[in-house]
């Protein structure tokens, strides 16, 4: 028995497959793990790394906000921007991080803070993958 996982962005379905467990971080609620048989659940997601545990190993996904819905052993993650660890451009994320830090030094600005957070999550997600392989 496994969970069906769908990672859906407005432009297309990014990932569709099965997992034994899915871990996401909700807004204000901290991390929550779903396993088969979980009660129906709807949550808003924080900018964080989500983990899909599959028999082949953990698949990490950088999720930049969005929503998660769980029902009938199906986990649907709706997100404007979500990237599988293997798809993250580390160099670009690094540059984005530096740019954001630069802007934050000049002035406090919510947009730059969000950009920095996104870049850090990307790097963290991709970094874990690099450590594994």
């Amino acid at each position, binding site marked *: 028995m496994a969970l069906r996982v*769908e990672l859906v962005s407005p432009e297309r*379905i990014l990932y569709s497959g099965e997992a034994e467990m899915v871990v996401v971080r909700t807004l204000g609620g901290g991390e929550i793990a779903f396993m088969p048989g979980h009660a129906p659940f709807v*949550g808003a997601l924080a900018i964080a790394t989500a983990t899909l545990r599959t028999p082949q190993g953990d698949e990490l996904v950088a999720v930049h906000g969005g929503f998660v*819905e769980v029902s009938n052993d199906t986990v649907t993650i709706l997100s404007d921007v979500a990237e599988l660890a293997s798809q993250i451009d580390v160099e670009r994320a690094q540059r984005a991080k530096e740019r954001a830090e630069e802007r934050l030094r000049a002035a406090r600005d919510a947009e730059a803070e969000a950009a920095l957070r996104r870049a850090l999550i990307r790097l963290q997600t991709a970094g874990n993958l690099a450590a594994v392989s």
Partner: protein
Amino acid sequence: MAGGKERALRRRIRSIQSTKKITKAMELIAASRIAKAQQRVAAARPYSERITEVIRNLAAAGAGEGSPLLAERDRVETVAYVVVAGDRGLSGAYNSSVIRAAERSMLHQREQGRRTRLVTVGKKAQSYFRFRGWEIDEAYVGISDNPSYEDARIIADYVTTRFEQGEYDRVELAYTQFLSVGTQRVTIRRFVPLDASLLETGDGPTADYEFEPAPQQILDRLLPRYAEARLYAALLEGAASFFAAQQRAMKSATDNAEELIVKYSREMNRARQDAITTEIMEIVGGAEALRQAQSDRTDLLVDHVLMAADVLTNELNPLSRS
């Protein structure tokens, strides 16, 4: 000199032929783009379906009251229109039908004493409304062929912000629905406030969901995404409709060019045949005249020539004089 007409026609045919090459190429390009645009419409569907489902679940849990994007205004004074048209022409009536429909609807609003505001997508919509003296709040150009979600997000954000600030009391979305390659329909739909029927929990009891954070908080974050997804779908359908319209327009242009080429070729061949016939008639006539002259001495000119020849022979040949 015959052949003047023939030359003119030949030049005409050559120019039509090169036009036909262009329209044929555009037709093929548009046809391939339709398929791609259609795929993007289909790829965007799961997201909006899921998001609608989540909204229903939230509504079933009692969320919905007081969400700014759902709030109907008691008095609607200002109606804003988002008109989705193309950046380029050569697409038949695609641009003009959606633009005209929006303009008619806006005039209708004005008759009822409401103010109208305007947000355009596509160069064609912008230039039309500017030329006709409509005031445009914001114009987005260069995105209509290949709209990204980010484009939709920017436009939806602009419109919903103005709605929430009370500058717009209602927003209508005018775009071309892509029903199939053969059928597209201009539609004007309410964009915000969002349709309250969205919250109706239609099919029986839904499961008891857990929420984190509270349903209302999730809904307030979800509704803007839903608005973006709707606008994104409108942009994608507009793009697909544009290519379908362009393909049709270019196909009929190519067919017309073919017809013209056939018609002018016939005309040219007839002109050439006429010229040849005239020439033959002239040659035949000339030859006939000469032949008649030899056999018929009554021809005055020939008589004189022959007589002169006799005189000359006599004079140059004294021996024959006797």
